[in-house]
């Protein structure tokens, strides 16, 4: 329980200020009473003394509970990357579908901006029971303000109990803005989501402190419950093209798409061919590589495996390779099918960026290296001998 002043009813008589036994009420510069809730003992004297009934008890918990029931369904905010719907969207739908089996509520995918019929089919096949497409062209422009206003209106209409988006450069600021507008909780960068019945709480598990601890967080008294989810962690469903879904095409209000910020252009990363995020196989080199020239060894191994080249931080800091290749806390988070760490010790800041890879191979001369804690296979030896042999073995296999 709490207490508050209903400003509209207050006539600024000042009675409450005088009556409060613990001096918890003071008039502010607008001559309106303000209750210091840290001092207030909730004795109720001011409530009785106020001539206009302007001071009321608020039953926060109870009220929230009433409100709860209005909030239903899981909303997944789709995002695009490189001209198509990003993989993380399908991963979120996969997770949302699993949550909905407990919540018994539909999964709604929201696509901000035009989407093709094929894309809509794909969203439904991947778990969406409903797809809402907000068709304004302007939503394609990377402006968080525009997207946030369009999404805000939709959330007001839909009142979902859960909103999920990718923990990406689009998703994080978008949901952060929304959470403030709805005065609700937002959990960042989740790697685990579950629901607790019958309370319908979303249990959100996330790494913090650079991955050295995990925290489980919930938003008990506010709705919607919001979370951003780390890409490459949740599993997408196998698409089922027989699934049926409702398709809703709408437009957001024209004033929503006006923005003071002017987007000029997107310059694709010059090193876009690295595309660590989408690679199935990544071979990464660390300080153990010793010189920039030796990176050709890593490249050769990566090429033979049809994979991308990654790196720990020291080679990037020393300018041997572009930052776009860096894996870890201050680089990319990756989760390929195969991650080969060559001459990388496995500092926590590196591990957080790759430890959810399906299969990890470490090539290191030190059998105590921390990388072995997450590795599936370890080849202990001199990388300058092991890697050329790997290359040889792969060439032989491919003949």
């Amino acid at each position, binding site marked *: 329980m709490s207490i508050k002043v209903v400003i509209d009813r207050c006539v600024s008589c000042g009675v409450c200020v005088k009556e409060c036994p613990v001096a918890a009420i003071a008039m502010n510069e607008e001559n309106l009473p303000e209750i210091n809730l840290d001092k207030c003992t909730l004795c109720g004297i001011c409530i009785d003394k106020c001539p206009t009934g302007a001071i009321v008890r608020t039953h926060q918990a109870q009220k929230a509970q009433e409100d709860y029931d209005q909030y239903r369904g899981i909303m997944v905010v789709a995002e695009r990357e490189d001209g198509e719907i990003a993989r993380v969207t399908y991963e979120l739908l996969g997770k949302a579908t699993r949550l909905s089996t407990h919540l018994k509520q539909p999964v709604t995918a929201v696509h901000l901006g035009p989407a093709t019929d094929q894309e809509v089919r794909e969203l439904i096949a991947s778990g969406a029971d409903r797809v809402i497409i907000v068709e304004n062209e302007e939503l394609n422009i990377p402006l968080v303000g525009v997207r946030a206003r369009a999404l805000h209106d939709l959330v007001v209409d839909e009142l979902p109990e859960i909103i999920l988006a990718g923990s990406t450069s689009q998703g994080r600021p978008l949901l952060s803005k929304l959470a403030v507008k709805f005065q609700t*909780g*937002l*959990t960042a960068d989740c790697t685990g989501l579950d629901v607790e019945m019958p309370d319908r709480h979303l249990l959100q598990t996330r790494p913090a402190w650079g*991955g050295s601890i995990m925290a489980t967080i919930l938003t008990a*008294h506010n709705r919607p419950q919001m979370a951003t989810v780390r890409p490459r962690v949740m599993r997408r469903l196998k698409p089922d093209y027989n699934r049926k879904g409702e398709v809703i095409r709408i437009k957001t209000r024209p004033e929503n798409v006006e923005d003071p910020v002017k987007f000029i252009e997107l310059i694709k990363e010059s090193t876009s061919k690295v595309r660590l995020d989408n690679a199935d196989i990544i071979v990464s080199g660390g300080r153990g590589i010793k010189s920039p020239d030796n990176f050709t060894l890593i490249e050769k191994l990566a090429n033979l495996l049809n994979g991308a080249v990654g790196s720990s931080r020291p080679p990037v800091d020393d300018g041997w390779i572009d930052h776009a290749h860096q894996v870890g806390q201050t680089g990319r988070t990756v989760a390929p099918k195969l991650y080969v760490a060559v001459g990388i010790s496995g500092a926590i800041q590196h591990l957080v960026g790759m430890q959810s890879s399906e299969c990890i*191979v470490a090539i290191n001369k030190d059998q105590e290296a921390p990388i072995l804690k997450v590795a599936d296979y370890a080849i202990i030896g001199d990388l300058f001998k092991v890697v050329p042999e790997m290359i040889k073995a792969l060439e032989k296999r491919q003949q």
Partner: protein
Amino acid sequence: MKIVVCVKQVPDISQAKVDPETYTIIRTGVDAVVNPFDLYAVEAALQIKDNLPQTKVTAISMGPPQAEAALKEVISMGVDDAILLSSKHFAGSDTLATSYVLSKAINQIKDVDLIITGRQAIDGDTAQVGPGIAAHLNLPLVTDVNGIVEIKPDELKIKAMTEEGYLYYFLPLPALISIGKGIGEPRMPSLRNKSRARKAIIPVWTPEEIDAEYQKIGLKGSPTQVVKIFTPEVGGEVLFIEGEPPQQAERMVEILGQRHII
């Protein structure tokens, strides 16, 4: 131009521990440092000041009294002055409450043209506080800025980084930007600024000074609740591939083939 930089003092991650009972971070005995991204945020502000010398840069931090050290450190880099937001009522704030407190402080500073935050703090790691402040203040927002291309008193041309590449924007002021690396290495303290920092008296603001509502700050104002903290489990057993390099390589390739990885 009037710039406010938000600076968080963070524990040096490699040393930190968590209280198993209260789930709060035990900060005693752990070195505190300025959040690395916030040093870049300060650098960005100072780059603007280099261009527009009449610019005033104020650093603010919400934290315990010791966070004063972080503010002194950024003054020694060239920040003009600083304000510490410190009160037991702020303790336990999540990102909603933190961004509310910081936005109230910025309101109190008045006529701020540009607010700069770091991309994310290395402890909480949410990257939600910057966008949260922008939402509270209804300001235009660009995150992950890693270059300020053009500086005018009422507009910036900026470059931001995303998964796809670099985005360029004209940003009218007032606005908020969050800074990633790439803006340029944070400058070293000068002797003059170091002595200025030593002498600086840093005002401490409590909820009263910033006119904050008590139910919106601290634990009360935080909708998220940490219910459990644990250390991540690391993967299962590692299989050592024995032998000399040629055999190791053959065996490894064989296993990867058997597992249909290659």
